[in-house]
């Protein structure tokens, strides 16, 4: 187990390194000069002149070769220093620390929404296989998954916030303001989770041991809880892990629409200003979230599934 964990954690570090390297060089080859972008974003067009450009380049070591800059960044990153944002002139870790809790709040709420909707929907659909409920749920899921999130967001704002005045339009001033962004974010997840849950249930329900359980004389409810759900849920956990990854990615878009002060907004601003340390910081946070969640999912999956043993201590 320890060996397995260490190996997996080293893999996470490897993934983070690859992601950050890729980001560094892709941002670098995108057209546009960093110093110009920073000046333009911060002080407007008038501030862009040779003198100011030179000062910015001097301040952030932009005159060095990209490889040297990159090496410097990696060296610092390993000591926990992720640099100073060009745009905000503050440490990247400080800015992210400020915004990350909001993103987590949004992501976790969206995740809870989607699980609360999708799991019961999938379970009931399977139990009512090919009956009315199943058809309705299929259509509902098809609708939620076919509409793009930004469009749903705008419709929700118009209907729920502007017309019905149930929730605030944007920001995070009141507790209710999380509902619309979280709902929008969760919609993309609901479809996949519902369909996977249904498929997994149906698969288990057709197994011989379910016939045996019926022949044993167990009641329907006991069969559902003890034998069907217990076997149908584990495959869903890995799906949920991947879905959380999508939530992190989706949050970038949704946060901007709803002016939610999370990492997503920071990320977009950083890209506009070619704010390299900030871009790297955001990418690392999202990649780390994704990798860490999937590690946790794998561990949970193995813990609840006796058929899986970690390689290394397999077969006694």
């Amino acid at each position: 187990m320890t060996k397995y964990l260490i190996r997996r954690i080293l893999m996470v570090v490897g993934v983070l390194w690859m992601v950050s390297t890729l980001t560094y060089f892709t941002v670098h080859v995108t057209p546009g000069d960093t110093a110009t972008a920073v000046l333009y974003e911060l002080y407007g067009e008038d501030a862009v002149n040779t003198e100011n450009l030179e000062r910015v380049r001097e301040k952030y070591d932009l005159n060095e070769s990209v490889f040297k800059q990159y090496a410097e960044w990696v060296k610092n990153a390993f000591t926990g220093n992720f640099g100073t944002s060009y745009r905000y002139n503050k440490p990247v870790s400080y800015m992210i620390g400020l915004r990350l809790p909001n993103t987590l709040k949004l992501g976790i709420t969206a995740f809870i929404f989607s699980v609360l909707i999708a799991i019961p929907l999938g379970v009931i659909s399977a139990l009512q296989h090919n009956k009315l409920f199943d058809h309705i749920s299929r259509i509902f899921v098809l609708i939620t998954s076919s509409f793009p999130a930004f469009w749903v967001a705008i419709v929700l704002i118009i209907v729920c916030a502007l017309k019905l005045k149930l929730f605030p339009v944007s920001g995070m001033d009141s507790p209710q303001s999380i509902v619309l962004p979280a709902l929008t974010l969760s919609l993309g997840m609901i479809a996949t989770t519902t369909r996977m849950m249904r498929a997994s249930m149906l698969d288990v329900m057709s197994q011989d041991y379910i016939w045996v359980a019926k022949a044993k004389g167990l009641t329907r409810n006991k069969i559902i809880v003890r034998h069907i759900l217990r076997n149908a849920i584990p495959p869903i956990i890995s799906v949920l892990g991947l879905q959380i990854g999508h939530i992190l990615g989706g949050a970038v878009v949704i946060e901007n629409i709803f002016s939610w002060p999370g990492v997503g907004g920071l990320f977009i601003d950083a890209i506009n200003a070619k704010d390299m340390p900030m871009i790297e910081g955001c990418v690392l946070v999202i990649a780390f979230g994704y990798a860490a969640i999937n590690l946790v999912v794998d561990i949970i999956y193995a813990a609840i599934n006796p058929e899986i043993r970690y390689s290394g201590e397999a077969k006694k």
Partner: protein
Amino acid sequence: MLLEINNLCKDYSTGFLGNRKIHAVDDVSLCINEGEMFGLIGESGCGKSTLTKMILGLIKPTDGSIKYNGEEISNLGEKQWLPLRKEIQAVFQHPQMTFNPKKNLYYSCAEPLRLFDMCDKSSEEYLVREMTECVGISFDQLKKFPHEISGGQAQRISIARALSLNPRLLICDEPTSMLDVSVQAQILRLLMQANKEQNVAMLFISHDLEVVHAVCTRVAVMKEGKIIETGTVDEVFENPKEEYTKKLLNARIEI
């Protein structure tokens, strides 16, 4: 007469609009006496498993009657079936797949005992130990999960599980077809022993003629959902009336 089946039918609808009917079981009649070993022969897809599931009340027949001990059971609800579950038990074809993969074997064996209050907590372990040792499985094996044991062991445990409730009728749906020959013999011996000692009647479904010949006293031949020939094992094997039965028997000899 323990089990009496009359004119039993099961149709399935298929096709794009559900407008094509398939007669999985078509007008089947047979009867099994107390303590009798009754064989049912037929190739795959001839409706044997559908018949099994109807006898076990797991699917409802389209038409016809199933009488157990003189009482009609084909239209009983889940609750009314409950006392009968103890008396009619089943052993299925794929041994490992008849166990919940997330539970250890002990749980699967003890569950029917708990369900019918056959014992209290303290004697449960003793009973489970006794019944598995009867089929030659050591108690330690029960701590394992279904994927950790062999097919033969799993089948023996599933027989032990079925017999633990002292059933009067055991439905064996191809109990040996997934096992290799040496293990097959053990399983058959076990079933015959149960038949002798506990006087369990068996509906023994198989496509393996040798096995049916060895185990059963009477036999029925099923083809495309219909029973085409019935008789004692000797009658049917020595002197088959139907062309299909002859072909089955010849196929055996050619191999």
